[in-house]
């Protein structure tokens, strides 16, 4: 580890913290339906969309209607995206003449993009036409992100409202989020990205003749416009196979830094939206503090492990020590311009959030360095998290935390003045327990059946981690991978598709039920016996609940994978 590395991490934290209040304030106005400085430009477009689709923007919805609207929208999106992939050979913007995508792969990809996962079983530059990238995948990068944010706002309304029947209007939340939050930032940053070197064209791939006279075909495309929303919406699906490690997707350290800010920007600002909507910004900062502490812990572990490098290289006369002339460390699967600090930071952030973009090949991380992203996703990606899903996941843990605190003192638990009763706790537990069922259940199947074992690229404990990481990533709607796994097979495409579906929708429905149930409750005025949820005691309790619940469920699986491998590496064992 170097001083400069820590300086970069500190600078990141400072700039992120500075964005929270302005963006949080702006987003609060957007979701309260107020005018913003963009209303003169975007207002007509917004009203046009409502008129086209027959939406009454003033009519609010009960949680069940909200859920049905959300689900139907995803069914429609799935059908369109599947159709586009199957028909791409006959459609325009296909200069490379890509063939139709195979049915199992098109199914997997469609589920992947509507659920905000962006798991990619395919190599984009040899599979997808520009039309599918722009009008299929980019569209879902916008709307799946907006859906997550809308759902988080619906849950916040559940806390903020009293004796209410409705939690907002899904169509309005979706539309306003895309038009006022995601699109303006995307336009500005996409142009910045092109300036910094990202391609943005619709031409065929370029054929170059290298200095030594060989032929090199350079893949091109509308990269920048997809790249920005891929990060801002915590989608993570790369335009190219190497994702944000590809020099066209992430040309330099500045674009890397901006990409990292984009991943956390909305998740961090939503804690402030939460605070503002429930009428006490300290509540938002308490949640922010929990996320911040867990983020720094993960970063420190990952950075330390990667900076140490691979001990097996020393015997070969290889110099892995950091110096003024090299970053050193574990450089397998990393890019020189990012070195170790920026790679470890990216790895941690992309899995704290449900982004899943990578600037480093996770499969080549050291065992402990690779355990950090794995555990981040297992805990539910609640550390700033996926846009929206991070906050609602964290609030489910908060419900659990006040419930446990209530049990300890023998008092009915309350959170933000709302009594937390049997229904809320049951629904929260259901939402939390769905994830390990899918993550561990599918892994258990994959490591005993032949089609599952055939996909593994590495032997020993690392191979087990490859399969585990795949189902953890799919269920968590992350989309990053231990990419040695050969996932483009009928077995993996189908089971991973199911895991993505379960992880997204089976968690959302109980969460919306909680939102509806909370909205209907009265607010109990705070008394001397109320457990304050904006102080350090609550922050500590919440961190404890997250780590204990996560630790108990996942420790055996982590022991079989990364921990065994770490011990093997220290002992010099190879597989």
């Amino acid at each position, binding site marked *: 580890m170097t001083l400069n590395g820590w300086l970069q991490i500190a600078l990141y934290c400072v700039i992120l913290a500075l964005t929270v209040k302005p963006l949080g304030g702006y987003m609060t106005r957007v979701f309260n339906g107020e005018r913003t400085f963009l209303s003169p430009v975007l207002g007509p477009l917004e009203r046009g969309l409502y008129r086209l689709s027959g*939406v009454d923007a003033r009519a609010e919805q009960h949680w069940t209607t909200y859920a049905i609207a959300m689900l139907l929208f995803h069914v429609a999106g799935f059908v369109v995206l599947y159709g586009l992939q199957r028909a791409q050979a006959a459609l325009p913007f296909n200069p490379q003449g890509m063939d139709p995508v195979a049915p199992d792969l098109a199914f997997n990809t469609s589920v992947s993009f509507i659920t905000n996962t962006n798991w990619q079983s395919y190599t984009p530059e040899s599979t997808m036409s520009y039309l599918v990238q722009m009008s299929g995948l980019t569209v879902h990068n916008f709307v799946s992100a907006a859906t997550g944010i809308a759902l988080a706002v619906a849950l916040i309304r559940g806390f903020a409202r009293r004796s209410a029947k409705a939690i907002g209007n899904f169509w309005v939340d979706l539309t306003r989020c895309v038009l006022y939050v995601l699109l303006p930032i995307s336009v500005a940053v996409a142009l910045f990205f092109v300036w910094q070197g990202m391609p943005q064209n619709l031409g065929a791939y370029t054929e170059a003749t290298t200095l030594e006279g060989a032929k090199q075909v350079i893949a091109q495309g509308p990269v920048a416009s997809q790249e920005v929303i891929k990060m801002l919406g915590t989608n993570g699906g790369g335009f190219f196979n*190497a994702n944000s490690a590809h020099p066209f997707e992430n040309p330099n350290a500045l674009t890397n830094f901006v990409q990292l800010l984009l991943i956390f920007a909305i998740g961090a600002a939503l804690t402030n939206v939460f605070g503002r909507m429930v009428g006490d910004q300290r509540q938002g900062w308490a949640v922010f503090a929990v996320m911040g502490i867990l983020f720094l812990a993960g970063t420190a572990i990952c950075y330390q492990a990667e900076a140490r490098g691979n001990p097996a290289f020393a015997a*070969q006369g*290889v110099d892995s020590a950091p110096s003024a002339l090299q970053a050193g460390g574990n450089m397998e699967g990393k890019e020189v311009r990012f070195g170790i600090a920026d790679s470890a930071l990216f790895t941690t952030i992309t899995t704290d959030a449900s982004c899943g973009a990578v600037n480093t090949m996770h*499969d*080549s991380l050291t065992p402990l360095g690779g355990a950090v992203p794995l555990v981040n996703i297992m805990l539910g990606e609640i550390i700033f998290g996926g846009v929206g899903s991070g906050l609602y996941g964290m609030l489910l843990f908060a419900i659990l935390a006040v419930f446990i605190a209530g049990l300890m003192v023998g008092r009915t638990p309350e959170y933000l003045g709302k009594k937390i009763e049997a229904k809320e706790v049951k629904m929260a537990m259901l939402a939390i327990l769905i994830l390990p069922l899918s993550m561990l259940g599918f892994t258990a199947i994959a490591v005993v059946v032949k089609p599952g074992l055939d996909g593994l690229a590495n032997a020993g404990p690392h191979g087990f*981690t490859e399969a585990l990481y795949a189902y953890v990533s799919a269920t968590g709607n992350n989309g990053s991978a231990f990419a040695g796994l050969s996932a483009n097979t009928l077995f993996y495409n189908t089971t991973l598709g199911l895991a993505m579906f379960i992880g997204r929708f089976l968690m959302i429905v109980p969460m919306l039920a909680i939102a509806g149930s909370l909205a209907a409750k009265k607010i109990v005025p705070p008394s001397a016996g109320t457990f304050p949820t904006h102080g350090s005691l609550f922050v500590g309790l919440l961190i404890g609940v997250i780590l204990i619940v996560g630790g108990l469920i996942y420790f055996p699986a982590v022991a079989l994978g990364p921990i065994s491998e770490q011990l093997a590496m220290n002992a010099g064992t190879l597989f």
Partner: protein
Amino acid sequence: MLKQIRPALLMIVGFTVITGIAYPLAITGIAELVFPHQAAGSLIVRDGKVVGSELIGQSFAEDKYFHGRPSATTEPDPKDPAKTIAVPYVADNSAGSNLGPTAKALVDRVKDDAGKLKAQNPTAPVPVDLVTTSASGLDPDITPAGALFQVPRVAKARGLAEDRVRRLVEDHTEGRFLGILGEPHVNVLKLNLALDALAKG
């Protein structure tokens, strides 16, 4: 429930038009107007021919050129399209090795490559970036350590003084952004173009 079907269908159409057609095409139009070089992939043209992209690494094997990092990219096997063969720096099929740290294949490869490099320059330890594959397989850069390590070989192959070649490396070393972000790096293609220009001029 039926009332929600119409908005579900028409909203996806509306957003496809706005975010899937209008937005990327508008960005493409503006980008090609304002930043034409970058929008087209930062291509380098020499004597009227495209020789590569500033951002994309390419394979170098001759002694007179600086070499980039090992690359794990592959191409379909011309004899059997269902299989792939290892070809470095395939710029329409980016990929890393995905070998884990305890993989025997990784350590054997590193041992092999380190042995070859030590034969070229027995006096210095081998910088780790020269024996590890990059994440994209297209890394355009090597570390300053990785470039300086190759100076004796390149100087000898070109009949140049080592100091002259070392100065060229130093001129082509790009530092951190604002002195903070990223890591110092040397763009291999640009360095090799400068070497060729030196030979001509």
